[in-house]
């Protein structure tokens, strides 16, 4: 039979007692921790949800800004291409004008030459019948200049000017990008304002007191109404598929209403 060590038993009992004392002291502390976790959990859930929501919104904002960049890039390239065409056309017009000037000089010189010869012949009382053939040639030459080359140059210049007119109108149409990008940026601004407000609201829960000042402008005093007016676009334009009509569908739809008005 094993011998009982009472001294050891007493020592262990004391240790056990100490554990119970520690337990008694720990329980209220643990209760505090549990209660704190219980209180903080909804806040953490809220933060989690807000973070997810804000992440989605920042992605939408990023996509909208990408669209703005893409649209401005496309419009700028288009405008540069048109301006290059305009430069080429105005350069061609300049060449045409030089050529027309040359032709006019040639016409003038030829006519003057004929008149001088005829005048000299008459003054010297010469027989002018010898001038009949060269005069006829000169008149034909003048007529051909008028009818062919000059007409071609005029037509070409008119065509170039019409082209310049069309190009100028194309530039004006390309500038619609200003309106479209303004609305996209207004939508991004609104998204950023929403994110700011949510973050400020979350901070308030951690640090009771005054909320950080909002970056949002007082829109009632704002002469530019775009950011206020285009809010719906910010939240709806990311939908895909069935959210959009094709141009043909729009035409068919409004043909109905036109017939009913």
């Amino acid at each position, binding site marked *: 039979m094993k011998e009982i060590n009472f001294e050891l038993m007493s020592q262990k009992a004391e240790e056990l007692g100490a554990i119970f004392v520690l337990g008694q002291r720990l329980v209220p502390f643990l209760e505090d921790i549990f209660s704190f976790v219980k209180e903080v959990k909804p806040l953490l859930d809220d933060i989690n949800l807000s973070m997810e929501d804000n992440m989605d919104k920042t992605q939408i904002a990023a996509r909208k800004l990408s669209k703005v960049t893409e649209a401005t890039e496309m419009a700028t390239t288009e405008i540069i291409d048109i301006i290059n065409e305009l430069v080429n056309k105005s350069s061609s017009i300049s060449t045409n004008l030089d050529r027309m000037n040359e032709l006019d000089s040639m016409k003038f010189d030829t006519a003057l030459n004929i008149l001088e010869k005829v005048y000299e012949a008459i003054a010297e009382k010469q027989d002018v019948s010898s001038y009949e053939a060269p005069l006829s040639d000169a008149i034909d030459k003048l007529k051909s200049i008028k009818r062919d080359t000059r007409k071609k140059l005029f037509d070409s210049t008119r065509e170039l000017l019409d082209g310049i007119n069309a190009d100028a109108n194309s530039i004006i149409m390309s500038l619609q990008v200003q309106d479209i990008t303004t609305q996209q940026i207004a939508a991004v601004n609104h998204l950023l304002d929403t994110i700011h407000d949510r973050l400020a609201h979350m901070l308030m829960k951690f640090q009771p007191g005054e909320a950080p000042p909002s970056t949002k402008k007082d829109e009632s005093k704002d002469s530019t109404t775009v950011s206020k007016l*285009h809010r719906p676009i910010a939240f*709806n334009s990311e939908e895909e598929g069935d959210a959009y*009509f094709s141009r043909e569908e*729009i035409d068919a739809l*409004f*043909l109905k209403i*036109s*017939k009913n008005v």
Partner: protein
Amino acid sequence: MRYLVIDDSPTMRKILIAALRTIGITDVVEAGDGEEGLAKIHAEHVDFVITDWNMPKMNGLELAKAVRGDDAIKNLPIIMVTTRDQRQDIMQAFEAQINNYIIKPFTPEILKDKIDTVLMVAKELGSELRISEET
């Protein structure tokens, strides 16, 4: 025929007027919002309205409803030119009895096509377009 261009963006008004000029329409008046537009419809004997949707004071949709609700001008053709491209937006415009709908960006050819369609349908139906003739 006299056209009224309504848009709160001066740039867009200039673009629309240039597009109309390109397709041979030069008798154009302009307004910066629906409220001003409605006043001009009455004061300037307007025959055709081209309007934006999003505008201060009175938007394009409210303007259309106001026009359709006024017996003196209820047949006035209205085309909406806007960036709002969603099905639900277009259905709203349809319900407000807009005659046609153009999504920006547009070209003068698209504008001409839409105006011609509206005028052709009105002609087929013998509807009196000019408010000056109705009054």
